[in-house]
């Protein structure tokens, strides 16, 4: 049980980081489905930088920088040029898939070395607590950062002027514009911040969960982060719950896979996704998205 809880939290961490970033982005009215490719870019950049320097910390910075770069790409087309956000997001995903695959082959010729990883950092004393000790206090810095980030994002949205303006932009860009808030600037910055977090979330996969980079290794986690935002009803607390739920489903999947030898393993791989879909269908119905989500803002067309 302890091991299952520990694995749940550990597996939830990258989802949580990515989903909190996406939450910030979506509350500003932008859907960034490019988050999948952004995570993948972060995973690769983090891995490559950590391998090159021998320092996972440098890898982390590189992952965030790569996330920013992909975010600038997305925001330039989706926010500044106001192209369809879904189309731009898909393009970002496919470009990232190709670029990271190409980079991995060019650098490592199919034989990548192992990256230095971030070690677990148990909190003395608390880590020995029964049941929750290992899950909450014997984790890597990523997990602590993810949980801290949830508090920062939650308070940022509800208690800061910037959060209030961000929410106004996401709910009614027109109203925000009329109040003198620069809608596109708010959204551009939100996308950059969210993408940096997605990059870091990707680095968790290569600098903590494993020590290698493989092509397409995010395997839909970015899309799950999108689902986590919806399932979490666009609130920081909800996103924490949803990410932990999905982490638990994944942990359980590994456990079941280890036991049920006769069942083909893809069935287990589908398990967390099926659970998420089911929960979204049942519980997501009443969730309310920001009213201007996914709608590029243009000042009204001229009228009488």
């Amino acid at each position, binding site marked *: 049980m302890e091991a299952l809880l520990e694995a749940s939290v550990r597996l939830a961490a990258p989802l949580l980081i990515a989903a909190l970033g996406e939450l910030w982005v979506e509350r500003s009215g932008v859907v960034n489905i490019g988050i999948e490719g952004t995570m993948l870019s972060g995973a690769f950049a983090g891995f490559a930088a950590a391998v090159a320097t021998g320092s996972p910390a440098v890898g982390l910075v590189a992952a965030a920088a790569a996330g920013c770069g992909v975010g600038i790409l997305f925001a330039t087309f989706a926010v500044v040029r106001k192209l369809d956000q879904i189309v731009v997001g898909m393009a970002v995903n496919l470009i990232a898939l190709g670029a990271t695959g190409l980079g991995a082959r060019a650098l490592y010729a199919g034989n990548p070395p192992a990256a230095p990883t971030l070690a677990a950092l148990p909190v003395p004393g608390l880590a020995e607590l029964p049941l929750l000790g290992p899950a909450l206090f014997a984790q890597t810095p990523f997990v602590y950062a993810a949980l801290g980030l949830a508090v920062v994002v939650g308070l940022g949205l509800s208690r800061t002027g910037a959060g209030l*303006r961000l929410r106004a932009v996401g*709910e*009614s860009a027109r109203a925000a514009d009329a*109040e003198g808030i620069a809608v596109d600037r708010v959204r551009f910055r939100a996308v950059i911040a969210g993408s940096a977090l997605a990059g870091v979330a990707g680095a968790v996969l290569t600098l903590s969960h494993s020590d290698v980079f493989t092509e397409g290794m995010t395997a839909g986690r970015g899309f799950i982060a999108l689902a986590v935002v919806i399932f979490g009803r666009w609130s920081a607390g909800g996103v924490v719950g949803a990410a932990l739920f999905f982490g638990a489903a994944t942990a359980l999947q590994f456990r079941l896979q280890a036991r049920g030898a006769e069942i083909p393993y893809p069935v287990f791989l589908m398990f967390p996704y099926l659970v998420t879909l089911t929960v979204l269908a049942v519980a997501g119905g009443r969730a309310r998205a920001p*009213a201007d989500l996914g709608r590029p803002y243009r000042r009204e067309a001229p*009228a009488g």
Partner: protein
Amino acid sequence: MPQATSRPAAYAARLHGVSKAFVPRRPVLDGVDLAVRAGEIHALLGENGAGKSTLMKILVGLLRPDAGSISLADAPVDLDRFTPAEAVRRGIGMVHQVSALVPAMTVVENLAFGDARAGLWFHPRRARRAAERLAARFQLEVSLDRRVEDLAMGERQRAEILRALGRGARLLILDEPTSVLTPREAEALFASLRGLRDAGRAVIFISHKLSEVEAVADRVTILRQGKATASLSAREADARELGRLMLGRDVPPLERPARTPSVAAPALEIRGLCAPGLSEASRLREIDLRLDPGEILGIVGIDGNGQRELEEVLAGVRRPTRGDVCVGGRRIAPRPRALRAAGLAHLSGDRDGAGLISAFTLAENWILKGSHDDRRFFRRGWLDRAAARRAARAAAERFGIVPADPDAPIASLSGGNAQKLAVARELDGDPSVLVAVNPTRGLDVGSARFVHDELLARRRSGGAVLLISTDLDEVLALSDRITALVRGALAAVPPGSDRAAIGAILLGEAAA
């Protein structure tokens, strides 16, 4: 509150020679002058398309004029750097026609989010105290802790005025503020505006309702086809003269000849109709009504009392839980095609949502209603585009729709012209019953007059019209009989009731 020591400005805003064209050589504004004094309610009167909204968008920094100059509080404005934020900083507050508050946020949050003085942190309690002080200072009553989407229209408007004042607005611009208000709410608004004027604030009041301009304005500027045709003291002109200045022609009063009672079967009869509502107040409760051929039955009511539900039942898109709908004496299943086949036409109150498809052309909209079965335009599933375009062009010419171009998208038409097309389409095929919902909402005087004339023409030729409207004047002018829809039930309106009596019924205050 510290007082400014300098002499108060004589003019809150002066615009000189302002021109704007979105298409070369077709100016929307053509050398417009406008002078608004401090401590004045200044009405800006004009038909739809006259350029009122464009002029105001320039004044709030949303659009840059091609030519002309602006000064605010007697100081010139650098138009190259005039953004919405700058306009707010210079004391301009806009109260939009479609509310520009964030519906999902509380009033307090709405007051706070655009506040330039807000620091890093948002303190809900401090923001609430500031909102309270503001509301008390200007005597505007608003439920501060409720979400804007839960407020009635009048209250939303007060919240928006409050927000503008909180930003230090010296000049408030109200864009057709009464179009969404009940008569009583409008009265309250006028009282608030007079209070603001007496406190030295200036108000620009955009309207096309002559009676309101007479009621509240000190001065009037009239726009027609992008030009300011007159600017005069409101006391100098009466409604009829203002109408002439606005339209460039005289508008004769409506004539509604007496009706000879019909002996035929009722055109529309509704018995014991119940239907679920969008809210508890708008659930339909035991609706009974009878509409004879050659009759206009007016149903007045305040938005949210079941009008939309009744409209939707009669359009066939809301399933009643109980009751019958009979057209021409026959019970009809309340589904869209069955109702239409029985001769019931529906002029939607949601013109852009459920009535017309704005991205479709005139021709496409014209044939949309009959797209299942109209042999004139469809043969074995194939669309006869030439026939559709011919029919749409003929209708556009007959009804004076500009442009009479079957390939023009509806979005390129003014509201008045779009509504003309909707009216023409519904009357095509000579329906025995026309359900018209807020048929002139948002229309200018000329287009509204066109719609009213068409409804009266239907009546003359023996058609029946069910007029569901929140515009009391419209219902009074057109209807043979009036009934009120209050909290989802019909309430009798005695013949000869005046505005005040009907207003009391609508508010559920009628003496039992």
